[in-house]
């Protein structure tokens, strides 16, 4: 394989990693703060993708406006998920929590099928091709990467510069102590779920410009997102970003050296082994 092509795959891997990192951060936030794995998290992304798709193709909205609306919509959805599903089972065994969000996954997939059938739908954007040093970079991915980075920066500033954001970080470190500070846990959870939802919405926007959407879209990025979150370490934003980049490189370069499926196999095996060796994540801390 030509070195330029490998470099090209590596760069495209980084670009994909940006969006994966965004997804992982959103899930990590919820996982770390509310301590529940939303199995259906990436299916919220699917909803966001559909939202953009329909607003643009059926209602003729301009893409940026549709994007903002989709982010808001999925944020509200995140809020609802927490209110309706998560909060009644906060005290249930982890198994039940996992399964309730799994039920949500079924519901979202099936309801999307019901509403929109299983057809693959894509925005027909005519985006230019970018050529740098003989490498071809997907403009859609560049765009997505840029916005993913902006989204992450936004999250970073929110979490470090605001009271509620700092409280969200604090919750994942000591959920009882934060209540002693006078923070209402219910509110912290709600805000976290809304932000997690918003991140999923943003990821949806960035993915619909690259891929077509269908009701089972969540299945393509769901598993990889979970393993990135766990590998990066709970509550560790930096870890999530690093794990995303590592995994997307494995997938991207593995894909050209073997096949896409084999690359994913390698990624999953790396994950399984890493859980045995370092259950707290590759960059996690031992608690």
């Amino acid at each position: 394989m030509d070195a330029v092509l490998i470099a090209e795959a590596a760069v495209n891997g980084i670009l994909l990693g940006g969006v994966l990192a965004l997804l992982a951060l959103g899930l990590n936030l919820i996982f770390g703060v509310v301590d529940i794995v939303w199995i259906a998290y990436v299916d919220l992304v699917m909803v966001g993708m559909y939202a953009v798709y329909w607003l643009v193709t059926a209602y003729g909205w301009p893409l940026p406006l549709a994007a903002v609306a989709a982010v808001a919509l999925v944020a509200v959805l995140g809020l609802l998920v927490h209110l309706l599903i998560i909060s009644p089972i906060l005290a249930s065994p982890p198994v039940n929590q996992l399964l309730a969000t799994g039920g949500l996954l079924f519901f979202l997939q099936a309801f999307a099928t019901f509403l929109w059938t299983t057809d693959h739908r894509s925005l027909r954007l005519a985006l230019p091709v970018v050529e740098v040093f003989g490498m071809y970079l997907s403009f859609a991915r560049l765009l997505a990467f840029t916005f993913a980075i902006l989204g992450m920066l936004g999250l970073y500033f929110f979490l470090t510069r605001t009271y509620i954001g700092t409280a969200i970080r604090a919750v994942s470190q000591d959920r009882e102590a934060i209540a002693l500070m006078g923070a209402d846990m219910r509110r912290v959870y709600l805000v976290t779920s809304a932000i997690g939802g918003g991140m999923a919405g943003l990821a949806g926007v960035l993915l619909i410009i690259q891929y077509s959407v269908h009701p089972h879209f969540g299945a393509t990025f769901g598993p990889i997102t979970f393993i990135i979150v766990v590998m990066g370490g709970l509550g560790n934003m930096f870890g999530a970003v690093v794990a995303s980049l590592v995994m997307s490189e494995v997938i991207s370069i593995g894909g050209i050296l073997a096949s896409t499926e084999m690359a994913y196999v390698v990624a999953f095996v790396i994950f399984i082994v890493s859980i045995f060796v370092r259950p707290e994540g590759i960059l996690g801390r031992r608690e």
Partner: protein
Amino acid sequence: MLEVDRVTAGYGEFTALWDVTLRVSAGEAVAVVGPNGAGKTTLMRIVSGLVPIRAGDLRLDGDSLKGRRAHEIVSRGIAHVPEGRRIFPRLTVEENLKMGAFLPAARRHYAETARRVWDLFPVLAERRRQRAGTLSGGEQQMLAVGRALMSRPRLILLDEPSLGLAPVMVLRLFDLIRRVREEGYTILIVEQNVRQVLSLVDRAYLLEVGRIQVEGRAADLADQDFVRKAYVGI
């Protein structure tokens, strides 16, 4: 100011406190001493709303706090420095203090309160940008106290502040608590370190196996043999 009125409480099937009555007046410093497992920490957690009351009542300035959740109790002016410090290790020192001032009322006075805390604990001011987890045990305990002060409380609950600290550090810590007390805060403190704490407070309660055994002025309790007996057994 604070009245704990014949309170019974526990976890699951386990009853940790039986019929405990206790009172703290404004401006007073009161200690609860007693051996391990006596229920001291549970008592503190009841006051701050972390453990529900089964029977009895809890009043602040005459208003019942029964059934209130922790964040509501903080807003009434009670700050709890929990056992084991419980600072947020991956937040900076300053962010920890910010969290202490989470209540909107406290937030408005953040700068002013923070200045008082920096004055009280200069070592924290030096390390304000450091992650709290990297502080030494004593510094972490100071941070925990400072963080509690940030909510501008009227009553501070201190749960085993000397636990796990080196002897020298314990001395310094008690000095600091004394200064906090001199600033006019009302204090309810739980301690194993009996001699130290009795020199600090006005009154004390001896709690043994979930029940108040003795109550009295600190100076009177300090010399009594049964305190030693409660601890060492003979």
